């Protein structure tokens, strides 16, 4: 039976099912912050377990942790620093992709900044690997570009 949203949203929890079959609960107010989830709730109703094919059990708990803090207004710079402290670059990337998929704006913004910070003085090769970019320049084309943009390459490490 469809429930009235207004009276019970504050304490209502939504069930989310990850791509690898695990189920997690979040508050409805946290779910609201993830537009993709909210759209699915609007379409399927809030009693059904919402399927998230592209998010997995490794990253969803971390995302839920972030939004738990968000709905109580407790997200501080310290919290955010702590949140990403022990994550390696790939783990942040996975979270970022999930935040993008879930259309979770606040987390998306924060992780964009964090990724930018991490890539700041990394080598071109590293950044290529990170974004899965295939280099379609010839060595001559690439070195010409680097010469033209010499200022940009001051101080950036190069891999061997």
């Amino acid at each position, binding site marked *: 039976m469809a429930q009235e949203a207004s009276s019970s949203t504050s304490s209502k929890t939504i069930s989310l099912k990850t791509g690898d079959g695990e189920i997690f609960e979040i508050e409805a107010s946290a779910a609201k912050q993830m537009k993709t989830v909210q759209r699915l709730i609007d379409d399927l109703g809030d009693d059904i377990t919402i399927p998230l094919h*592209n998010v*997995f059990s490794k990253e969803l708990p971390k995302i839920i942790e972030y939004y738990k803090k968000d709905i109580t207004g407790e997200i501080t710079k310290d919290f955010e620093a702590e949140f990403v402290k022990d994550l390696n670059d*790939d783990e942040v*990337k*996975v979270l970022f*992709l999930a935040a*993008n998929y879930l259309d979770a704006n606040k987390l998306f913004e924060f992780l*964009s*900044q964090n*990724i*930018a*910070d991490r*890539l*700041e*003085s990394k080598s*071109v090769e590293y*950044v*290529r690997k*990170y*974004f*899965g*970019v*295939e*280099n*379609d*320049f010839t060595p001559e084309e*690439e070195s010409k*570009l*680097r010469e*033209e*943009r*010499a*200022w*940009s*390459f*001051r101080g*950036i490490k190069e891999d061997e």
Partner: protein
Amino acid sequence: MLSTGHDDVISSLPDAVLCHILSFLETKEVVATSVLSKRWTRLWDSVPLLNFFAELSDREAYFRFNEFVYSVLLAHKTSIKRCTFDILYDNYHLAHLGFPNVIKWINAVVQCGVERLYIYIESYDNIFKLPISILSCKTLVVLDISTLTAKGFSSVRLPSLKILRLNETNFLNVQDLVLLLAGCPILEELLALHLEFDSDDSLTYQELESLSLNKLRIANLAGTICHFPLKALHNVELLDIEINKVYRSFDDISTFHNLTNLRLYSNNCNMNLLVKVLKHCPNLQNVELKQGSAIGMVEDVMENWVDPTFVPQCLSLQLKTCIMRHFLGQESEIQFTRYILKNARVLQTMKIHCGEDLEIEKELSLCPRASSTCELIIIQ
């Protein structure tokens, strides 16, 4: 397995998402990504945020940087939302060569409809002169400049400007500052720190009355010693200002109805004047008094305290905290403190910062307090 899957996904992210990540990088790094692949050569110039940082001490660096900025500005396809120029020219010669280029860059960015502009140009012997094209930029919402000269302008039209931050900016006279502000009708935040004026002409009565900044909520004029039209600030909620010889009478200013937080720098101050100030701030909740101007000068306090015959409304109803810094322990300061403690009915904290050798704790803790919850804290 999973990571290759993600690599495919991340490289299939739309341009807008990748540009978004790039927008958090310094432009220098953004341009470097153009070398990742052919797709990326098309991404970098869509990032609407540009920031240029450089400390230039030799000709080679200078030329490379120049080339770089020109190529970025020329390639830029979308409108530029935000642009920062933070450049240090390490010697006179480079500055002399460089300044005309910076002017061209700023003009180009202004033409691109920039909304937030940050200009910090430093050079030991030269001062960069602000291009006046900025002063008629319809799209500008934030202007933040430091260590520049603003001269030679006669009309200012900044209809979208909400935040103006001027740090160590040099003006011909106060009239020019007023002219600048008069061109910012929807200004909400003003920082005018350590401004300098070539001449200290005072404003005419007309000039004092004419400026009105109705939307202004925050004003910080620390370190700026001039005859500033206080009436223009009448709607502010937060105010930092130097009270000095100029505001001797304080009779002809209007009331600050919305002011809740006030920080006063007073040099050679008449403590009675401070009480008069409080009279003009009926809703003041937090006040901080710093002896000595924000520039750092400290002179002795005037010794002519007279017990006021009135109690300002904010003391009776609103004032919660009072902080005094560089307290010298002179008689009129003590009398002032006593007066506040005696009349501030809802005061929660009176905090006094003073030198280690000053022995005022006993004397002040014995003063009668109107507020039973008032805590007296002395920090030495």
